[in-house]
C-alpha cells in the first residue's frame, strides 16, 4: 500500500523533535570525553612526554563530568538520551539512574588515582606502548557499561573495556604476563560470548534490547517465555566476569602479573562492572527470577567469600593475596544480590563502591611495598614500618577497611548485608559473611605483621622518602575510606534511593517512555 509523498508524515511518532538540553549531553559525555582524549593521545603517539599530563587532566575532567551527572540525577531523577533522536525503543538509549551515576563517579575517582600513581609507576617504554590511550579507552568502556540503557550496548562496552584490558595486561610482555593474559583473555572472551548468547535469546523472546522496554514487558511474558533460562545464563556470564566461585580462577592467575597500577585499576573496576551488570539484570529486569535463583546465588556467594579468603591465607605474595581478597569481596556482593530487598541490594551496591576504592588502594600499597622492600613476597620483605611510618599507617587503614572493621568504609555494607541475611533467616549466609571478615582480618594481619612489623635481625633500617605521586593517591583513597566510614549518612541515603529505584523502576521507565510511550 503505497502512500504518496505529498501527504505530510507525522515525525513526532518516531523522533524526538524537541531540542536536546545541555544537561542531557552529560549522559553521553563521560564516554565521548574518554574516547576524545584517547584519540588525542593516539595522535600524539610520538610525544610520549605529553601523555601523562593530558591523561591526568582528562581523568580529572571525567571525575568532574561524573560528579555533575550524579548531581543532575539526584535532583532530576533518571535521565535518558537516545541516539539519532529516534524514540525508544528504536534508538539506542543511554539511561542513567542513581546506581549507574554512583558507579561511574567512583570509577572515575579510582581511575584518576591510578592516573596519578602511574606517573611514578609507568616508565618510558610503557608510555610508548600506549598505556595512557589504553587507560582512556578502558574508562570509555567502563563508563559506557555503567551508563547505557541497552543490553546489546552493554555487551559492546564490555568488549571495549576487555580489549583495552588485554592491551594493559600485556604491557611489558614478560613471560609471566603473557601466561596471565592467555588465561585472562580466553576465559573472559568465553564469558562475554555467553553474555552474547543470553542477549540473542533475550532478543528472540522480547524483540527489543532496551532495558526499560524489557523491564515493562517481562511481567506479561512471565508465564510463557523461558525467562529462568535467560536469567541463569546471565548469572553465569556476569558471575564469570565478576570472578564468582566456581568460575573465578582466571583472576588470581592474572592480576598479579601486570604493572601495579594496571592491577590496581583492574581490581577496582573490572569485576565491579560484572557486579553492576548482574545487579541491573537481576534486580531491575528479572526480579521474580532473582527470587527463584536466590538460594543458588547465596550459596555461590558464600563459597566465593570463603574460597577467596582461604586462597588469600595460603599465599605469600603480596599481590596474589590481594587477588584472592578481590574474589572474597565479590562473594559479599553476590550474597547481597541473592538476599535482595533494600538491605541486600543497597549493601551490595555500597560494598561494590567501597571495594573499588579499597582494592585499588591496596594494590597501590603492594606496589609501594615492592619499591621499598625490593620484592613482593612477604617471606622476604620486612621492616616496611620503620622505612616509612606514614605509608605503613595508610596501609593499615586499608587493611582494616577491607576486613570490614570500623571506623572504615567496609564496616557499613557488612552490617547491612549481615542484617539483611538475618532478616530473611539465612543465618548461614550471615555466618559466612562474618567468617570471611574474620579470616580477612587474619590474612591482612599476617601480611602486616610479616612485611611491616618484622625487622631483619641485625640489619639497620633507614627511613625512605616516597615521591608524592605514589603516596598522594594512596593517601586520598585511604582518607576517602575513613571519611565514608565516619560519616556514611549522605552516601547511605543515596545508595538506599538507588536500590529503591532499581527495585521499583517506574522512574527509570518514565524517563525512557515519558508519555507511556509506544507499545
Amino acid at each position, binding site marked *: *500500500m*503505497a*502512500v*504518496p*509523498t505529498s*501527504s505530510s*508524515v507525522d515525525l513526532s511518532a518516531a523522533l524526538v523533535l524537541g531540542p536536546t538540553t545541555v544537561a542531557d549531553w552529560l549522559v553521553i559525555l563521560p564516554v565521548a570525553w574518554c574516547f576524545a582524549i584517547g584519540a588525542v593521545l593516539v595522535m600524539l603517539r610520538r610525544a610520549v612526554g605529553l601523555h601523562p599530563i593530558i591523561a591526568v587532566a582528562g581523568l580529572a575532567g571525567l571525575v568532574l563530568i561524573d560528579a555533575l551527572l550524579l548531581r543532575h540525577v539526584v535532583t532530576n531523577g533518571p535521565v535518558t538520551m537516545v541516539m539519532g533522536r529516534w524514540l525508544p525503543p528504536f534508538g539506542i538509549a543511554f539511561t542513567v539512574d542513581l546506581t549507574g551515576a554512583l558507579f561511574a563517579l567512583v570509577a572515575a575517582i579510582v581511575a584518576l588515582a591510578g592516573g596519578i600513581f602511574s606517573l611514578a609507576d609507568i616508565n618510558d617504554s610503557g608510555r610508548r606502548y600506549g598505556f595512557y590511550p589504553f587507560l582512556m579507552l578502558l574508562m570509555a568502556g567502563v563508563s559506557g557499561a555503567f551508563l547505557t540503557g541497552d543490553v*546489546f550496548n552493554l555487551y*559492546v562496552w564490555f*568488549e571495549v573495556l*576487555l*580489549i583495552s584490558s*588485554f592491551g594493559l595486561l*600485556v604491557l611489558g*610482555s614478560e*613471560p*609471566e*604476563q*603473557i*601466561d*596471565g*593474559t*592467555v*588465561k585472562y*583473555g*580466553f576465559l573472559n*572472551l*568465553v564469558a562475554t*560470548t555467553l553474555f*552474547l*548468547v543470553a*542477549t*540473542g*535469546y533475550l*532478543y*528472540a523472546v522480547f524483540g527489543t534490547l532496551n532495558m526499560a522496554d524489557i523491564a515493562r514487558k517481562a511481567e506479561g511474558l512471565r508465564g510463557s517465555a523461558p525467562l529462568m533460562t535467560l536469567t541463569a545464563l546471565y548469572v553465569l556470564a556476569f558471575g564469570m566476569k565478576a570472578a564468582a566461585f566456581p568460575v573465578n580462577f582466571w583472576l*588470581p*592467575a*592474572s592480576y*598479579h*602479573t601486570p604493572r601495579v597500577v594496571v592491577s590496581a585499576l583492574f581490581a577496582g573496576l573490572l569485576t565491579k562492572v560484572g557486579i553492576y551488570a548482574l545487579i541491573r539484570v537481576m534486580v531491575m529486569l528479572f526480579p521474580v527470577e532473582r527470587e527463584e535463583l536466590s538460594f543458588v546465588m547465596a550459596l555461590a556467594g558464600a563459597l566465593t567469600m570463603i574460597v577467596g579468603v582461604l586462597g588469600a*591465607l*595460603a*599465599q*605469600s605474595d603480596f599481590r596474589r593475596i590481594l587477588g584472592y581478597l578481590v574474589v572474597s569481596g565479590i562473594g559479599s556482593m553476590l550474597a547481597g544480590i541473592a538476599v535482595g530487598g533494600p538491605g541486600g541490594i543497597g549493601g551490595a551496591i555500597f560494598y561494590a563502591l567501597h571495594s573499588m576504592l579499597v582494592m585499588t588502594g591496596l594494590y597501590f600499597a603492594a606496589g609501594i611495598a615492592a619499591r621499598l622492600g625490593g620484592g613482593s*613476597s*612477604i*617471606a622476604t620483605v620486612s621492616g616496611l614500618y620503620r622505612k616509612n611510618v606514614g605509608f605503613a599507617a595508610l596501609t593499615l587503614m586499608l587493611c582494616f577497611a577491607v576486613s570490614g572493621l570500623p571506623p572504615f568504609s567496609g564496616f557499613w555494607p557488612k552490617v547491612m548485608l549481615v542484617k539483611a541475611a538475618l532478616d530473611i533467616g539465612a543465618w548461614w549466609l550471615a555466618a559466612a559473611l562474618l567468617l570471611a571478615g574474620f579470616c580477612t582480618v587474619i590474612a591482612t594481619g*599476617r601480611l602486616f605483621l*610479616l612485611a611491616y612489623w*618484622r625487622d631483619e635481625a641485625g640489619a639497620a633500617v633507614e627511613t625512605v622518602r616516597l615521591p608524592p605521586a605514589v603516596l598522594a593517591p594512596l593517601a586520598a583513597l585511604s582518607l576517602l575510606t575513613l571519611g565514608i566510614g565516619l560519616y556514611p549518612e549522605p552516601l547511605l541515603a543515596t545508595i538506599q534511593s538507588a536500590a529503591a529505584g532499581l527495585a521499583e523502576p517506574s522512574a527509570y521507565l518514565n524517563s525512557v517512555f515519558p508519555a507511556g510511550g509506544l507499545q
Partner: protein
Amino acid sequence: MEAWFALLVGIFFTVAVYLMLSKFIIRVLLGVAVLGNAVNLLIFTGGRLTRDVPPVIAGGVDTLAGPAANALPQALILTAIVISFSFFAFLLVLAWRAYEDLSTDNTDEMRVAEPVKDPMPPLGY
C-alpha cells in the same frame, strides 16, 4: 527452517565446547572462533527466519509495502562479527607469542604466573 537452524547452532556449540576443553591453546582458539559463529547464527535465528524482502522503502513511498525481513539481528551480528574477529586476531597473536616465549602451547605447562612448587607462606618470624 528454525528447527534446522537450531540443530546447526547446537552442532556448532558442541564442536566449540569440545575444542575449548582441549589443553592446547591453538585448539582452544579454534573453539573460540567456532563459538563466535555459533552465537552469530543463534542471533540470526532469534530474529526469525523468513523469506521476506529486505526492509527497503521504495522511491516515492513513505512506509514499507508488505512484510519485510528483520534487519536488526543482521546489524547485531555485524557488530558481533567485527568484535569477535578482532578478538580472534588478538588471541592468535597472543598464542603465537606465548608459544615463542614459553615454548609450549600446552596450558598445563604454562605455570609461570602460578608456579607449581610455590614456597610455603611464612608461618612465623
